[in-house]
């Protein structure tokens, strides 16, 4: 009614003012305005979708207590233990940021999946032992109601390390340490080796160490999927995006030796979305660097390493990506069902894959060389392997046919090839869980628990990983691991 009345009055007024404009040339456009008002009223009324606010479901939350940078097995393990050990259910909001939700380049999925306790450092042995018990009881740790139980496809076939004359003494002392920590490892002489595994050529082999229990290989995708599923049921937020910036605040303090030191703390993380300039600033209290092969970039964003070399501010995180190749070949007369994962002194290793005489193996280069990242190198290596008989001599594969190959990155710690765990001394709320140089997958449950204990209690409670703190890079104290594959 009002509609009908008003135009009359206005229309007459308009017309009387300007006789030439009959069709509402005066820009009032009453009909258009009315339809707009009708639309707004309709959208405010309940029962209709309200398009007033933009859609932000793909963005991470604006506030989060802990931001885990990197969604591989280490990052998910830290998130799991943080939620498991928190004092109150729902007490911590954890956000896991992963750049690539297909995990196409992540070391976890491309890994061979082995777990062994044959290390020289007691801490590494304890981490592996705990991981073995975690994997054994995985359906108790990662139980989700209504989901089927996880089948890790674990092969308990053990690891067999072969040593030449010059490495035999080191291997003996390593095995002593391993037995002390509780690993079930035994030494074998060349005769015993020939008896047990007749397909090994024991020329040049002086001693071998064989793991009997809690060693073998499993399916890393299953572990990743299980962790993801459990984390989603515990209420952890997942976001696909890239961390591009840390916003830090600094504080200058004086040490007891009257030195000025700048302590930084990250209070905002900028997470940028894929294929877009859109980013979300996430306010956070703690950041965990579990970015694997790309951890050094994340550390550089926080200002770690920006300073004169030789000082604590100038000490960079010495983790870089190293490419490693894995080949799958078929050999009909090869070793049988009892084959353990055999690793040679030259760094070459292989294991059985499935029941159809397929084997999987690779070789870590002994020299400290950076391998190129291009795909052409991969094809070249396949040809080299086909022609020259890749295996250095310990196991003879007759007429192997290479089926497939792939490459993945190790998060290689160039300093001492061992992991970096714990907080940074200057950037006080960044915690590291990276740099494990090829055994990150097998130590992930133990490391995750250690980092969670460090955050929640302030110190390591179960396994003491103080030799793995960041300080050692500045102080120059190497915790060298001698058995790297």
């Amino acid at each position: 009614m009002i509609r009908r009345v008003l135009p009359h009055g206005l229309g007459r007024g308009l017309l009387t003012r300007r006789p030439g404009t009959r069709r509402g040339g005066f820009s009032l456009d009453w009909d258009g305005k009315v339809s707009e008002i009708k639309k707004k009223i309709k959208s405010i009324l309940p029962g209709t979708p309200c398009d007033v606010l933009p859609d932000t479901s793909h963005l991470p939350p604006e506030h989060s207590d802990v931001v885990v940078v990197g969604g591989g097995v280490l990052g998910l393990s830290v998130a799991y233990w943080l939620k498991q050990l928190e004092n109150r259910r729902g007490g911590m909001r954890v956000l896991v940021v992963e750049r690539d939700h297909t995990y196409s380049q992540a070391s976890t999925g491309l890994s061979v999946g082995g777990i062994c306790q044959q290390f020289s450092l007691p801490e590494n042995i304890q981490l592996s032992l705990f991981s073995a018990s975690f994997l054994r009881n995985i359906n108790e740790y990662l139980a989700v109601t209504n989901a089927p139980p996880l089948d890790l496809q674990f092969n308990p076939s053990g690891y067999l390390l072969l040593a030449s004359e010059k490495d035999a003494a080191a291997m003996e002392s390593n095995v002593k340490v391993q037995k002390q920590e509780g690993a079930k490892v035994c030494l074998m002489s060349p005769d015993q080796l020939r008896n047990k595994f007749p397909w090994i050529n024991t020329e040049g082999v002086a001693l071998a160490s064989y793991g009997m229990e809690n060693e073998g290989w499993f399916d890393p995708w299953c572990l990743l999927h299980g962790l993801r599923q459990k984390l989603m049921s515990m209420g952890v937020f997942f976001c696909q995006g890239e961390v591009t910036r840390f916003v830090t605040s600094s504080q200058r303090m004086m040490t007891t030796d009257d030195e000025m030191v700048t302590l930084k703390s990250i209070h905002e993380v900028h997470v940028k979305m894929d294929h877009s300039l859109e980013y979300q600033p996430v306010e956070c209290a703690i950041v965990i660097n579990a970015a694997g092969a790309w951890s050094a970039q994340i550390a550089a964003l926080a200002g770690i390493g920006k300073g004169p070399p030789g000082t604590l501010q100038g000490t960079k995180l010495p983790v870089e990506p190293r490419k490693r190749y894995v080949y799958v070949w078929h050999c009909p007369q090869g070793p049988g069902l009892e084959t353990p994962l055999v690793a040679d002194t030259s760094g070459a290793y292989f294991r059985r894959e499935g029941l159809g005489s397929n084997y999987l193996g690779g070789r870590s280069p002994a020299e400290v060389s950076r391998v190129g990242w291009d795909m052409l190198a991969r094809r070249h290596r396949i040809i080299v392997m086909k022609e020259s008989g890749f295996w250095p001599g310990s196991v003879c594969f007759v007429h192997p046919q290479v089926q497939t190959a792939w490459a993945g990155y190790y998060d290689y710690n160039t300093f001492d090839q061992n992991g970096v765990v714990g907080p940074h001394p200057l950037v006080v709320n960044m915690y590291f869980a990276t740099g494990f140089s090829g055994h990150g997958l097998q130590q992930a449950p133990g490391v995750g628990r250690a980092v969670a204990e460090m955050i929640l209690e302030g110190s390591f409670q179960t396994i003491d990983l103080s030799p793995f703190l960041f300080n050692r890079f500045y102080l120059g104290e190497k915790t060298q691991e001698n058995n790297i594959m």
Partner: protein
Amino acid sequence: MTQGANGQSLRLVAPMWNGTRGIHRLGGAVVPEGNQKKERKMLQFLNNHFYDVEALRGYLLQREMSKVHLKNRSFTWLEEQHGPYSAGAFFILKQGGAVKFRDKEWIRPDKYGHFSPEFWNFREVPVEAVDASDCEINYEGLDNLLLLKELQSLSLQRCPHVDDWCLSRLYPLADSLQELSLAGCPRVSERGLACLHHLQNLRRLDISDLPAVSNPGLTQILVEEMLPNCQVVGVDWAEGLKLGPEEQPQDTASPVPA
């Protein structure tokens, strides 16, 4: 082309996967009937829509698991008091299994779970055979079983919690174990069978009816190769092979596709 028993040609066929098993059925490989399926669906619906039901189910599951843990605790005090053989025998009898000491008769618990206490006197007599069929032994419980160092015959038929990890623990019995039966264990797969190569004195191995083994015929052949002195019983190697397209099955007695 391989030849079957009746001269028909056979080819390998992929095994069928018989669906997921819910977490509340630890190891049950039985296909549910119509009624059970409806109950299961109702339970799942309630679980997805009510937090209380989910929490209750989680609590009941935890209770079941802790019951199994309790059954498999270590009897170290008993071992100190009465020696390893008696302690191990007590563990097996408490679980519901049967035990045979050397030169003595089988000791079995009756239907109420009671058994005669005469074995406490057999301090020095080793245990020769253990029948732990349908017992709830798991990885931790093997601590007690491995006390029986001179065991010759072990039967783990239809044990719901014996899996590949448990098989990797059997190597300390390599010197004496001659007979092992794993028939019907729902969690044992070919990966666990691979670590039986330590048991070189084994003369008879029963691996029939293992639902988790992906390829029973091929596994049988590989296990026979791995243990040359052992008679491996259970699977006919032709199982899993299908009749070739050019030969029609003439009678029902021919090898049936898996």
